């Protein structure tokens, strides 16, 4: 343990003194978050700028209410056949809202809402329901209604995020994976200068040398996550964009960030072991990251991709990470919702670390 702590301390000191490299890990994703969030704010507003779709149940009694609720921002669609069908529809984000009117005296109202719907849009629809019902004599007297509750129907994969919901986690993930650069460059310098050979001759296991990098870079990645989320909450709205709503479950967010971090660090270690020069590391690591980002819905949201590309996106670790972040941030999902993406990322991290060890031993042999 003492040796591992010494390795962590060394790596941390070396990293903290590479001010420019470290700054790049924070400035680059922050810049992308601001620029892309603002650039796509109109395109991704309220589900692609089309306005939210809603329906009213039951169909026979609610048609008139639906017509009154329809406006520029809310488009009425055919109501589902049943509440179960409505629930399933909202789970997929189609429609985003279903107002279920339970007949009775007085009637009760339940609004099934897609959690991907921006909070402000949900509040606006609630106000619209209240206004229409109170203003009209449609037979529904909300003052005397037994209840009016809002139920958010969870769905970790469906729906469309807003610009800030898409871009903050997306570019955060992109930034986290860019630890490949400092990891590989420090490692290549160690190998070039004979430091690695010296450590090997001192009987320091290579696996310990790899583990010695994980701790410090996890701290860096988690700091990136905290600061990028903070940018979504403060910087983006300050520049005119939408405010990022943080999830209630910070622990789940940390779990997704940690899984992403381990996968990113393991990728960096594999590149470090495989690349013989800085130039190779830059090309393999940089191009690999950009390709994974392009495929994985970081640069272009997956929901605007062609179906074949959406299928291909599932192969990108960055897409897995984005799924995890969206499950928590967008859908307020639970541990079960992040289990699959986190497990995939952790399995990838283990596989990449194994590959790094294998390549090293093969070369050393």
């Amino acid at each position, binding site marked *: 343990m*003492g*040796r591992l*702590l010494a390795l962590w301390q060394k790596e941390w000191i070396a990293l903290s*003194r590479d001010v420019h490299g470290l700054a790049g890990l924070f400035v680059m994703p922050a810049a992308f978050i601001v620029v892309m969030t603002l650039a796509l704010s109109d395109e991704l507003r309220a589900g692609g700028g089309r306005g939210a779709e809603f329906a009213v149940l039951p169909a026979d009694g609610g048609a008139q209410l639906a017509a009154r609720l329809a406006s520029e921002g809310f488009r009425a669609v055919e109501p589902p056949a049943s509440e179960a069908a409505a629930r399933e529809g909202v789970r997929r984000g189609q429609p985003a809202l279903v107002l279920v009117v339970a007949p009775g005296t007085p009637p009760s109202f339940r609004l099934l809402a897609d959690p991907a719907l921006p909070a402000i849009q949900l509040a606006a629809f609630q106000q619209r329901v209240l206004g229409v019902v109170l203003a009209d004599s449609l037979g529904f007297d909300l003052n005397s209604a037994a209840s009016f509750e809002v139920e958010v129907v969870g769905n970790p994969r469906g729906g469309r995020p807003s610009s800030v919901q898409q871009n903050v986690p997306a570019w955060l993930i992109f930034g986290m994976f860019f630890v490949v650069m400092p990891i590989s460059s420090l490692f290549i310098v160690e190998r070039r200068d*004979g430091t690695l*050979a*010296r450590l090997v001759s001192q009987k*320091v296991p290579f696996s310990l040398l790899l583990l010695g990098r994980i701790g410090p870079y996890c701290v860096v990645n988690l700091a990136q996550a905290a600061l990028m989320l903070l940018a979504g909450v403060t910087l983006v709205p300050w520049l005119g964009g939408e405010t990022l709503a943080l999830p209630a479950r910070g622990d789940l967010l940390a779990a997704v960030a940690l899984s992403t971090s381990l996968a990113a660090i393991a990728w960096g270690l594999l590149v470090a072991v495989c690349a013989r020069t800085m130039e190779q590391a830059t090309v393999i690591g940089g191009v690999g990251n950009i390709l994974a980002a392009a495929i994985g819905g970081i640069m272009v949201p997956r929901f605007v991709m062609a179906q074949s590309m959406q299928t291909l996106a599932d192969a990108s670790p960055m897409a897995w990470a984005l799924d995890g972040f969206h499950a928590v941030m967008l859908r307020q999902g639970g541990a079960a919702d992040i289990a699959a993406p986190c497990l995939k990322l952790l399995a990838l991290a283990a596989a990449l670390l194994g590959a790094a060890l294998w390549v090293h031993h093969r070369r*050393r*042999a």
Partner: protein
Amino acid sequence: MGLSVAGLSFRYPGSAEPALDAMSLDIPEGGVFGLLGPNGAGKTTLISVLAGQLRGKRDEMRGSVRVEGSVGLVPQEHAFYPMLTCLENLRFFGAVQGLGGAELRLRVDAVAAFGRIEGVLARRAGQLSGGLKRRLNLAIGLLTEPEVLLLDEPTVGVDPQSRAFLLESIRSLARPGRTIVYTSHYMEEVQAICDRVAIIDAGRVLISGTLDELLQNSGEPPPPPRRQRNLEQLFMQLTSRSLRD
């Protein structure tokens, strides 16, 4: 104690020529053993095998290697972290070798004093002069008081003062129970500090023995002072004048 290799062959993957070609060499315990050879002779490969850095598959490495005692390596590169201070480097290399607490502090103080780098412990290693870097490199290799010290061209790129200091320091390290293997291109260094010498070329040992034995076997009359120039003449005679790289 001591080191020996017997029938040792090593070939780097993808290389047609072996770096070590059925090499056999005994390095007795104690004293300074000089390993001489032109570029590409196999000196660094032999040091790397002795240090446990190089292993080989069955078709790449044959023969036996015996190294008794703890090993300290001082590579020819500045094998430390330039962004860390000298003190941080010493503490790190001590800690990864299992030193800690008061023992680590004592050893760091001792090797810093030995290398006369106490005055620059707070400076970043990358900002040191060439001579100070060499001294730090040597100090790191001495942290655990190894019984076998492998020095791979430890005086490359330093001024005459630093070289003289390093040579005196290395000579002072020799004691019973400690074996020092010293590779160099500089004949006068080897003549000055080594008790025994081997000249190798193309992965083979051409000649090995004490300096006196080597110079007597060269067949040349020993002009006074006997150790000046003769080793270089012997070296050129054995390895020929052709350029190696």
